């Protein structure tokens, strides 16, 4: 077992078990020196990157992983190394910065592991002791959490459909309209004339969509309907609720969408 740590500056001062612990930690650990060269990468990371310690140790991170060049990860890393403040990269905003796959799975884009990344540069005290700023990159595989949340959201969507879609007509029911109007009016008060998004539940059920559009003037409604939509029926109404001293117009519209 050689994690590559023995290539570091002072291996003799490290306890014997430390190498074993780092090697067997169940998340990816990559240590960079001040020149962004890889000093150490643990077994978890190497297995999922399908690389050997000899291939990464001493190499510049951006040469070993050219896919990182010019992206959000590089910007976050450079900023963290310069400021000395830790940074976090969430999987929702950056799903898979490193090309890591499950050890036994195929290496294609859609099988890349979903990653949550912590970039932890040394603070001033440790930099003074080490002689340069080392930066630790910790990568956690959150693919199972993403899959679980996706499943829960799909269940929540189905439950929402059951509550909001009329079982007989299979279009939005009264509760759906009431809730949509409340949401759209609130949205409209913040951004008058903004185009509303058709509710996903109605589109999925029929290919038809129910729209609720609100604006501070009736003419704005016509400009808000996209060309790809064929309007089947439209009911213009004027609300007694006022935004910025003006009446709010809202239309309930049944339309067929091409998308």
């Amino acid at each position, binding site marked *: 077992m050689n994690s590559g740590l023995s290539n570091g500056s002072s291996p003799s001062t490290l306890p014997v078990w430390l190498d074993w612990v780092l090697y067997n930690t169940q998340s990816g650990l990559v240590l960079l020196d001040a020149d962004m060269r890889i000093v150490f990468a643990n077994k978890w990371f190497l297995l999922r990157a399908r690389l050997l310690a000899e291939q990464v140790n001493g190499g510049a991170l951006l040469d070993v992983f050219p896919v990182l060049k010019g992206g959000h990860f590089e910007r976050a890393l450079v900023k963290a190394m310069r400021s000395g*403040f830790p*940074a976090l990269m969430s999987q929702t905003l950056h799903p898979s910065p490193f090309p890591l796959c499950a050890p036994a799975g195929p290496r294609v884009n859609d099988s890349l592991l979903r990653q949550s990344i912590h970039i932890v540069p040394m603070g001033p005290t440790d930099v003074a002791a080490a002689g340069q700023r080392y930066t630790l990159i910790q990568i956690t595989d959150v693919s199972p959490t993403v899959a679980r949340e996706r499943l829960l959201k799909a269940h929540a969507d189905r439950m929402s459909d059951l509550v909001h879609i009329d079982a007989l007509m299979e279009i939005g029911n009264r509760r759906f309209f009431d809730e949509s109007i409340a949401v759209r009016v609130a949205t409209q008060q913040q951004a008058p004339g903004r185009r509303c998004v058709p509710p996903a539940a109605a589109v999925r059920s029929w290919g038809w969509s129910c729209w609720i559009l609100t604006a501070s003037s009736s003419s704005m409604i016509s400009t808000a309907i996209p060309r790809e939509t064929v309007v089947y029926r439209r009911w213009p109404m004027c609300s007694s609720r006022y935004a910025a001293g003006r009446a709010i117009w809202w239309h309930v519209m049944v339309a067929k969408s091409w998308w």
Partner: protein
Amino acid sequence: MTLTEMELDALAEIFNHGVGQAALALSELAGEEVRLSAPRVEEMSRRDITEKLNAQGANRICAVRQGFSGAVNTEALLMFPVDQSLQLVQLMVGDDFPLAQLSEMEQESLAEIGNILLNSVVSSVADMLHIEFEGTLPQVELGQASEVLHTEANLDDLILSLQINFEIASRKIQGYLVFLLDVASSDVLEKKIAAFIESLQ
């Protein structure tokens, strides 16, 4: 610590530099322009900021907390009413479907947004006031304003508060950035700000 009007203006200038950097980083992340503004810096008590958040109808708030230590020890918190934090994540992620609550993944996105803003602002303070800091990773907390601010400590303790206005895709979201400082840190900060003003004159 009681800062003069000029010292508060100097701090606002420093914070705004950091806020500008954060706006650039967030715009790159969101793929569209994110405007950030921090109109003024105020010295407030924990009680005042709690009341201000409660007045916004925010029974529950969402906060991103990061600790910074060095010559000045501070806990920086970016706080939003929960519904505003949901909107912010939704706008940044580009999700059309309204979020009902912050799941684990969305909390992590909010932590990243807060991390970008807090790091930028504290970096700006570190660079301009020549203070070295060590930082911690961000943590997301949900709860009542009084719980998040640990108001049991002392309701009248002064904190530095900075109102942050986000503007993304014509939507406006208002949050507060607060720095909790201990007495010794307040004194050091006051001296550093005075030295900064002197260096400008």
